[in-house]
């Protein structure tokens, strides 16, 4: 995690070099095709891993499921049949694969409902939380990174980099607990200003506007927690990428034309330095998802993260398997977007 911040250009820089770089007119089509094929392979591997991890690795999932409880032999046999474990392995996998492709992720052991329904219910709260946190973190990171690089070595730069590094070293869940204690419960002179958990209060007056305000009120603390942990990566990448640009000739030219410093920065340097940051947003959505698991657990935010956490206690294997596939699959999709976007945005990658 930490090394991602420190060597961001590594993964971005050599991502497009392995496949399809040497094309002319059909290069783009070949590039897109190879990336899509790569993503499809990854998705298949995710499904394969999801299958083998939860069905084969522990030997017997029924044993894992009933760990620590007294169950009779008939109950075990019934469970085995219900989860199709009495079939040969290859048939189980084929059934499972086509099930996943149809959107059938099995039935939750704990809720006795289709896993896909449970996931669909919890999907939007996570998108709302992770989405608003990502947008705020990107804005904050770009602003801080730009200022840091433009006056690099200054006190502002040193302070901002130090703060970012420190916050990056903070475990998300711990920061969440502290924020929860200080701003929701209240410590000393600070009163509890925000709700301690959930997404809505039971006593909200009817109507759209009160509802939106109530959700926003619940969103503040989890969102701030996530932003505090993830903005550092955008700041560091923006800073180093702008530092690379700053020696470039076109900036000297712009200055020689007599452009004001601020205009040189806003119109010339920053847009070019933004490229790695834009693709990074998509590449790092996986980390945002992981962060969401922690934040949702601490603030009882009813999203996919809390669903995963609640499934861990049982343990509800079909549900965990479903969230694993959905979360990993979403990241595979986002990476594909990042690859294609990078190629589309940066003419240098296209030309070479």
């Amino acid at each position, binding site marked *: 995690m*930490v090394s991602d911040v420190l060597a961001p250009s590594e993964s971005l820089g050599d991502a497009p070099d392995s496949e399809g770089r040497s094309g002319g007119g059909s290069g783009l089509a070949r590039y897109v095709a190879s990336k899509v094929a790569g993503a499809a392979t*990854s998705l298949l591997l995710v499904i394969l891993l999801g299958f083998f991890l939860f069905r084969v690795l522990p030997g017997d999932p029924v044993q894992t499921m009933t760990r620590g409880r007294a169950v009779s032999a008939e109950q075990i046999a019934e469970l085995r049949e219900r989860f199709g474990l009495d079939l040969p392995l290859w048939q189980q996998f084929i059934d499972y694969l086509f099930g996943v492709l149809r959107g059938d992720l099995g039935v939750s052991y704990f809720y006795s409902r289709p896993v896909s329904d449970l996931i669909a219910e919890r999907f939007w709260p996570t998108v709302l939380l992770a989405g608003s946190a990502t947008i705020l973190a990107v804005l904050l990171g770009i602003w801080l990174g730009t200022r840091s690089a433009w006056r690099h070595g200054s006190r502002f730069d040193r302070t901002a980099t130090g703060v970012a590094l420190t916050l990056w070293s903070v*475990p998300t869940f711990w920061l969440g607990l502290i924020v929860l*204690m200080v701003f929701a419960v209240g410590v000393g002179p600070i009163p509890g200003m925000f709700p301690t958990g959930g997404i809505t209060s039971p006593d909200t007056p009817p109507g759209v506007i009160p509802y939106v305000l109530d959700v926003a009120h619940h969103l503040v603390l989890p969102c701030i927690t996530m932003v505090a942990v993830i903005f550092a990566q955008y700041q560091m990448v923006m800073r180093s990428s702008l530092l690379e640009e700053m020696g470039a000739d076109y900036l000297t030219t712009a200055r020689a034309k007599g452009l004001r410093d601020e205009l040189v920065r806003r119109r010339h340097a920053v847009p070019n330095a933004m490229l790695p940051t834009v693709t990074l947003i998509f590449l790092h959505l996986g980390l945002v998802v992981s962060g969401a*698991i922690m934040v949702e657990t601490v603030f009882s935010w009813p999203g996919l993260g809390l669903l*995963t956490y609640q499934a*861990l*206690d049982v343990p509800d294997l079909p549900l965990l398997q479903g969230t*694993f596939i959905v979360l990993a699959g979403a990241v595979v999709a986002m990476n594909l977007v990042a690859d294609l976007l990078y190629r589309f945005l940066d003419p240098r990658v296209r030309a070479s």
Partner: protein
Amino acid sequence: MTETRSPSDDGPAERVSVPPAGGDGPVVKPRSPRAIAWARRRRAFATGWTSFRSQRAGLVGLIALAVIAVLALAAPLLTDATGLDVTQATADRLEPPSMQYWLGTDENGRSVLLLTWWGARISLLVGLAATVLSVGIGTLVGVLAAHFGGLTSAALMRVTDFFLVVPSLVLAIALSTVLARGLGTIVLAIGLTAWPTTARLVRAQTLAVEARPYIERAKALGAGHGHLIGSHVLPGVLPLVFANTTLAVASAVIAESTLSFLGLGDPTQVSWGAMLKSAMDTGAVTGGAWWYLLPPGLGIVTVVLAFTLCGRALETVLNPRLRGR
């Protein structure tokens, strides 16, 4: 005899017998290659250390790590482990800090100071073990992919890219769910999910090393794969691996605390993440028991920050391109 050595290789040409770094008089007989190699390594290490010392942040990190490591190792000598036993606890639950309990007590009436102190041992142990595993896998995969190239490389890098894409926390959660709870499982879960960045880094570095002329010369002289990798590639790659390792420990410590916080750790062991889980589960947060939350969290932040600072300083030492930034 033509020796083509790139100027970036360390030290003066070692085929001439150089007086050792200590300077113990004139050298009469030619020294063995092994001795020459060791002298060169010592010299490189001394230069590296001088360069590292000039990085104030890195030095601060190193000192912090040394202090924490000594404290963690000395825990059995300086404290009484019976205080960790729930049944032996005598104090009230969630007592604020006092003269007797400097950092207050937990929900069972145990000293938070003692728990934090002993928790450091588990957190560091798991962090280091997981790092050794992940860096080991990463180095192996990276070197093999770069050295053998072709189909081997394609297959290995495909797997690496896959593990790079899958969110590691989600995979680690899945792994530790299906395996039996325990420290070994946590180590395995972190190690198996954290190696891809190392693999990519090592592969890139190995490709750079293998492009150097002395590798070609060794091949022409009939060196086998084992000799090439062991004697030529690894010495060139390991310094970078080492810098990467310090950064990897930082993420492994965070990962350990995260998994323990989710309740996937060993329930019989005290670690910082497990302490924070009990703090959340037993109402220490809503009860305002800040003394139970701060020590383990600050412990994690200190260790992670110290490893990160050390790693950054090491990277600067080993990668001259970063110097002066």
